């Protein structure tokens, strides 16, 4: 028995679920209703965002609102849609079935939006319909009689323009009703299905004790969506009943799903004929005219490349200023503590472990915020779907979806926001493949390493900048080509299965709402800090520990790092990395790079400059060039520089990315797989480069 707090009678907060098609303005409405009183989390076991907010009715009573993922139908095609159905039907263990529903419709796209609405109204819960974007509908010359629609469907209908906060008071008023009646189904089931449905509802009521109000929609779901049958804990008798009915229909060649969809649309058409007027379909509206430019074979590309350029530039350069402020801020703070605290391990733990870890998390924030700002803007305006439309052909060559493009582009800045941006991809396999290859796109953390290695490779002053830029470009191209190669390979092998299907709405263009873009940006970034932050912090402290212990004796000649676990690790991996041309000192750099790749540069400067007992701090490059193997040959030959660059292009060396992939895929399997396939191919590629180079006499 569970002794529960529910035993104490208390006023239960009414819960509303907000449901609607994608692009119907549901999130804008959610923001208008709840303001900043929102919590974003995940549904357990899946990476679908769970958004819950709090609001107050006009009488001041608290109301809880769940913003469900956008769905076209309650027969789900993506994990998002499955969550929407499961919450609405009370099929999730940890989320209570909502008490009431607010179903949001895009008034300018009434017919298709009403399809989901008829499914929602079948659920038998008190429901309010919101006709959103009335302004857009009217601009199209489309008029809807809300009172007539309310009479037809038997539920309150509120007209809204959520983006302008019009109709919010009226909606709040409707949400504060006392004892609202449950919705009643108005459309008629195809006659041939009625006996079977009656039989199944009777069975579900007696055997599975399903409440009378929602037994109809549940029975209909089992008959029209065979996948739903396996997920539900149905009694064996009900399962038999379903199979029998299924058999009967199949013998007659009758498709239940088709019949039900046709019946719904037939009903919708009748309702629309009575309540809506106008909307001459053939006059091109603003969206049509914009599209003829934005998806134009020439202008479309020009604008697309321009926009991507601006986005990339902002992530790469603009976000770099706040990034540097954060870095220098944390460095100053660490210095402050170093000066004011007594020398010791505690001080070092705080400055080199904890502070470095927190800084390591926050340092990603400017890029993540910038990227999410752009993504929010692209989504809000409706351009995102066009970008996918333009890029789909290219991406489909390697078996991916047009929507994989933005995450991959973003990964040039940083794989973390890129991986988080894959949430817009519905197909789980496409999403996983995109996550797996995204870190191969050269991120900005590799840039300092590339710069250092190119400088070491071409140390002369007179080398033209163009040549250096050319090498840099080649490194980026190499990473990108490898990413596409592995995407293709994974789609051919691991993620085999159905050829990708694209059924993507191109929503009308809209003026973006800045508050909603900002709100989305903040809530997504919060999730990153909360989820990835803890892992990054923990691992930073671990890496500090490895570098700080065991202590070198005070009289010891070699530096602390060489004595430490990290140093020992570097030495112990030397036999493995020697075939790539790397010595144990580079090994320490490789290991420390796991905190973040750019750490390689600072580690190398510690390894070399500290060891150099002279007070003159030579530029790192010059020290590296003087570095010799025990037999007197130079360590950083051009071949080793190239081998090292190849390694950095391909290797997975970022705990933050591993942490995020772990969060996004909900298992350790995929981040570990990624670690091994990327680092493995890095090892192989470097080995081939170095050994072939040696054979050729370099």
């Amino acid at each position, binding site marked *: 028995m569970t002794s529960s707090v529910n035993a104490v009678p208390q006023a239960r907060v009414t819960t509303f679920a907000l449901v609607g098609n994608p692009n119907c303005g549901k999130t804008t409405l959610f923001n208008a209703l709840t303001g900043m009183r929102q919590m974003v989390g995940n549904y357990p076991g899946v990476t679908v965002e769970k958004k819950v907010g709090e609001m107050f009715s006009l009488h001041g009573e608290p109301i809880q609102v769940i913003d469900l993922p956008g769905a*076209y*139908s309650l*027969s789900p*095609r993506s994990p998002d849609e499955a969550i929407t159905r499961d919450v609405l039907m009370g099929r999730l263990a940890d989320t209570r079935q909502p008490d009431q529903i607010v179903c949001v419709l895009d008034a*300018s*796209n*009434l*017919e*298709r939006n009403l*399809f989901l609405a008829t499914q929602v109204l079948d659920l038998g819960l008190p429901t309010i319909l919101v006709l959103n974007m009335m302004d857009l509908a009217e601009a199209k010359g489309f008029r809807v009689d809300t009172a007539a629609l309310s009479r037809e469907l038997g539920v309150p209908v509120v007209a809204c323009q959520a983006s302008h906060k019009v109709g919010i008071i009226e909606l709040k008023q409707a949400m504060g009703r006392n004892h609202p009646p449950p919705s009643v189904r108005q459309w008629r089931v195809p006659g041939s299905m009625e006996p079977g449905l009656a039989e199944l509802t009777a069975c579900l009521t007696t055997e599975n004790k399903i409440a009378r109000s929602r037994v109809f929609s549940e029975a209909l779901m089992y008959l029209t969506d065979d996948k739903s049958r396996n997920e539900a804990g149905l009694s064996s008798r009900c399962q038999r009943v379903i199979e029998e009915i299924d058999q009967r229909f199949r013998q007659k060649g009758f498709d239940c*799903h*088709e019949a039900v*969809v*046709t019946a719904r*649309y037939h009903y919708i058409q009748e309702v629309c004929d009575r309540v809506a007027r106008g*909307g001459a*379909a053939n006059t091109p509206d603003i*969206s*049509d005219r914009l*599209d*003829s430019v934005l*998806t*134009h*074979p020439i202008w*479309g*590309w020009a604008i697309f490349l321009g926009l991507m350029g601006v986005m990339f530039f902002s992530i790469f350069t603009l976000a770099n200023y706040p990034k540097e402020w954060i870095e220098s801020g944390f460095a100053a703070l660490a210095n402050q503590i170093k000066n004011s605290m007594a020398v010791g391990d505690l001080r070092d733990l705080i400055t080199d472990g904890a502070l470095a870890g927190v800084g390591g998390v926050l340092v990603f924030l400017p890029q993540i915020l910038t990227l999410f700002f752009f993504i929010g803007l692209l989504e809000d305006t409706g351009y995102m*779907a066009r970008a*996918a*439309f*333009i890029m*789909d*052909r*290219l991406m*489909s060559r390697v078996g991916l979806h*047009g929507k994989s493009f933005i995450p991959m582009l973003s990964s040039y800045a940083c794989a973390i926001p890129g991986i988080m941006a894959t949430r817009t991809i519905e197909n789980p396999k496409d999403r996983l493949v995109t996550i797996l290859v995204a870190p191969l796109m050269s991120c900005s953390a590799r840039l300092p390493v590339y710069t250092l290695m190119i400088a070491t490779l071409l140390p002369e002053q007179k080398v033209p900048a163009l040549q250096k830029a050319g090498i840099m470009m080649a490194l980026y191209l190499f990473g990108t080509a490898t990413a596409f190669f592995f995407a293709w390979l994974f789609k051919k092998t691991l993620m085999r299965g*159905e*050829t*990708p*299907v*694209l*059924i*993507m*709405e*191109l*929503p*009308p263009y809209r003026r973006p709402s800045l508050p909603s873009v900002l709100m989305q940006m903040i809530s997504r970034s919060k999730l990153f800090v909360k989820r990835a932050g803890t892992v990054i912090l923990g691992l930073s402290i671990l890496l500090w520990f490895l570098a700080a212990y065991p202590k070198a004796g005070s009289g010891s000649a070699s530096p602390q790092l060489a004595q430490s676990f990290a140093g020992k690790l570097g030495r112990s991996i030397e036999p493995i990395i020697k075939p790539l041309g790397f010595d144990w000192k580079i090994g320490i750099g490789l290991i420390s790079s796991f905190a973040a790749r750019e750490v390689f540069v600072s580690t190398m400067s510690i390894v070399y400059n500290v060891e150099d007992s002279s007070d003159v701090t030579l530029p790192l490059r010059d020290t590296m060039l003087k570095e010799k193997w025990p037999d007197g040959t130079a360590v950083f030959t051009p071949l080793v520089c190239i081998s090292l660059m190849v390694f950095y292009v391909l290797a997975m060396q970022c705990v933050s990315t591993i942490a995020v992939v772990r969060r996004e895929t909900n298992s350790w399997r995929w981040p570990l797989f990624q670690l091994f396939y990327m680092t493995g191919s890095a090892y192989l590629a470097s080995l081939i480069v170095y050994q072939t180079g040696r054979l050729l006499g370099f």
Partner: protein
Amino acid sequence: MSSVRPLSQVPPGAEAQIRGFDPLCQEPHRLREMGLLPGTTIKLVRWAPLGDPLEVKVRGYHLSLRKAQADHIEVIYSD
């Protein structure tokens, strides 16, 4: 003259009536739920700049499908 042909054979800018999906059509359920039913008017708006996917207008909204799917949607087109 009206003829039955795959949606992918409708000239850009022209309208046709959906007749049905052939057995090779993927995800016919979702296409129906999106309002693509026998008798529905569908307009092929344009092809993407790279020649795939295509954009259609149906029930007043725009939808993007790949040629591989449009090949299996039968329409009645009268020229």
